[in-house]
């Protein structure tokens, strides 16, 4: 990837980005209580004394949440360590206790790495556990926080388990940031810990952005940008914010270290600081929880259950497909995205043609991914075999696959039922001879070297056979008759 720079009036600037990604875990219940961890229910129905922070209530840690956090750590190559919870103290109405229980100086996962699809390694500083807040709706004004008359709070989300994944400031362009989040999302989904839905807020990204003179060593002052709820917002916000900082610095100003809000409609970031607000989180060890020190056997269990990660899946497919092209890379991405790569691998392993398997999986099977994931590789292999042998034309094979995905059955039986009788080669030969006899002028031109006429002749054959002929075989037969 070429270097991304911003050209200012005084020279070239480089951007430095680190991302904090909050990932909601797909547990049944919340982090510290047995309320359902569910999205979209009636407000304040999934609450209890614990997640409402009622006086006297106490937290108890969800085992499954810890396992998911360890799975994420493992997938990111982190070291899993003894850890503890702290309280992060600040007042905000969506936080029932007015402190957040989070891991501070002893996070569960540390020092990992995420490799971007293009091979760039990005450091993972930590991936720690914490609880989510409730949800605030601003009323009056235009529905945004500024200018609102009042706000309403729903605590259904309060206490939902989160893992916060903090990258090193290793990203150097908006595109890299996009690529990082996209790969991270795929990894999180692969661990089974996340549904990866940014638009529903189950994955939330904050970006720490700073700029420096191109080639510089020191980091500039960074701003943290919040409210990035799509990959598009992420890219636009980083572009905007870095340019803002460059312009500020070039005018002789300085960047304030602060949190900024991305406004998607206006396409700009703005300071979130309110008048007179002082923040000082006064972290201290959470006395209501005891430390977490996962024993080696527990970690091993989690590691053993972990499936392949996207990068491993890509490698596995690439090695089966041999040389690659952009089109093939796209097919690979689609198949992995839809969770069809296990099917592809198993089908190829059964002896089916790898390119053909890939094509049918990425195009036709991808239309019905849920059914395709249930498909028996043996049946899929049978179908590919019929197509590869010329018994079924491409069109016929697609039709049979559609039927296979919808109603099941054996590919050969389906083909029979659809009337896709295999065309015996002598029958095909007779049809070809008849077509040549009926179109002597075109045949002469073809024999004379006009290859374009082949298409015409092939079309005639196909019409005569009502599409039952294999186009490749027809072309071969025509060529051999030309001599």
């Amino acid at each position, binding site marked *: 990837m070429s270097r991304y720079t911003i050209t200012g009036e005084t020279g070239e600037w480089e951007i430095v980005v680190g991302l904090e990604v909050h990932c909601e875990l797909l*547990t*049944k*219940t919340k982090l510290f209580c*047995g*309320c*359902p961890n569910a999205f979209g229910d*009636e*407000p*304040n*129905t999934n*609450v*209890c*004394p614990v997640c*409402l922070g009622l006086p006297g209530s106490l937290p*108890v*840690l*969800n*085992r*499954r949440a*810890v396992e998911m956090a360890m799975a994420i750590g493992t997938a990111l190559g982190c070291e899993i360590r*003894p850890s503890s919870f702290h309280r992060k103290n*600040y*007042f*905000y*109405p*969506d*936080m029932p206790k007015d402190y957040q229980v989070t891991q501070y100086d002893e996070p569960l996962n540390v020092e990992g790495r995420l490799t971007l699809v293009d091979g760039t390694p990005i450091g993972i500083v930590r991936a720690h556990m914490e609880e989510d*807040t409730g949800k*605030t*709706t*601003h009323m009056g004004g235009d529905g945004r*926080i500024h200018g*609102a*008359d*009042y*706000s*309403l*709070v*729903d*605590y259904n989300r309060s206490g939902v388990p989160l893992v916060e994944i903090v990258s090193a400031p290793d990203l150097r362009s908006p595109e890299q940031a996009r690529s990082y989040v996209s790969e991270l999302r795929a990894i999180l989904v692969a661990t089974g810990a996340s549904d990866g839905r940014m638009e529903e807020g189950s994955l939330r990204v904050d970006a720490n952005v700073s700029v420096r003179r191109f080639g510089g060593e020191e980091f500039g002052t960074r701003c943290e940008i*919040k*409210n990035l709820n799509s990959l598009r917002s992420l890219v636009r916000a980083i572009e905007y914010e870095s340019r803002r900082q460059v312009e500020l610095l070039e005018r002789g100003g300085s960047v304030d270290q602060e*949190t900024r*809000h991305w406004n998607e409609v206006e396409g700009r970031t703005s300071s*979130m*600081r*309110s*008048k*007179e*607000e*002082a923040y*000082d989180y*006064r972290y*201290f060890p959470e*006395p209501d929880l*005891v*430390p*977490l*020190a*996962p024993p080696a056997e527990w970690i091993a269990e989690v590691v053993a259950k972990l499936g392949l990660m996207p990068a491993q899946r890509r490698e596995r497919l690439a090695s089966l497909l041999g040389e690659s092209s952009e089109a093939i890379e796209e097919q690979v991405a689609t198949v992995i995205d839809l969770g069809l790569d296990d099917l592809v691998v198993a089908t190829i392993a059964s002896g089916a043609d790898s390119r053909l398997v890939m094509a049918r999986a990425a195009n036709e099977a991808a239309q019905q991914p849920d059914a395709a994931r249930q498909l028996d590789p043996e049946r899929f292999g049978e179908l590919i075999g019929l197509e590869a042998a010329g018994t079924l034309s491409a069109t016929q094979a697609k039709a049979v696959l559609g039927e296979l995905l919808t109603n099941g059955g054996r590919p050969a039986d389906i083909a029979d039922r659809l009337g896709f009788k295999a065309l015996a080669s002598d029958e095909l030969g007779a049809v070809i001879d008849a077509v040549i006899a009926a179109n002597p002028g075109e045949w002469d031109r073809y024999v004379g070297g006009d290859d374009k006429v082949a298409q015409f002749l092939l079309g005639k054959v196909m019409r005569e056979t009502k599409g039952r002929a294999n186009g490749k075989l027809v072309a071969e037969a025509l060529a051999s008759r030309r001599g």
Partner: protein
Amino acid sequence: MNEPLSKDAVAHIARLARLELGEAELSRFAGQLSAVLEHVEAIQRLDTAEVPPTSHPFELVNVLRDDERSACLPREAVLAAAPAAQDGRFRVPRILGEAP
């Protein structure tokens, strides 16, 4: 010897703690808190370089619950306790800044 707490420092702490204190209270607390801090200063002189901190009296670890549902509270009961509620939610005056 620790500096006694100034009124400004007390005002800053009050802001962090979301307490609204009048001038008289600020002065009174400044004096009282300074006296307590002066008393506890003795422990700052103890040599504890080799002593680890204790935050829990006992060394329990890995206290966990299974990921299983338990009963929620009825929403009417939850909202009945609220100083103000609307549309099934808690109502609060306008919020001046985003969460940090």
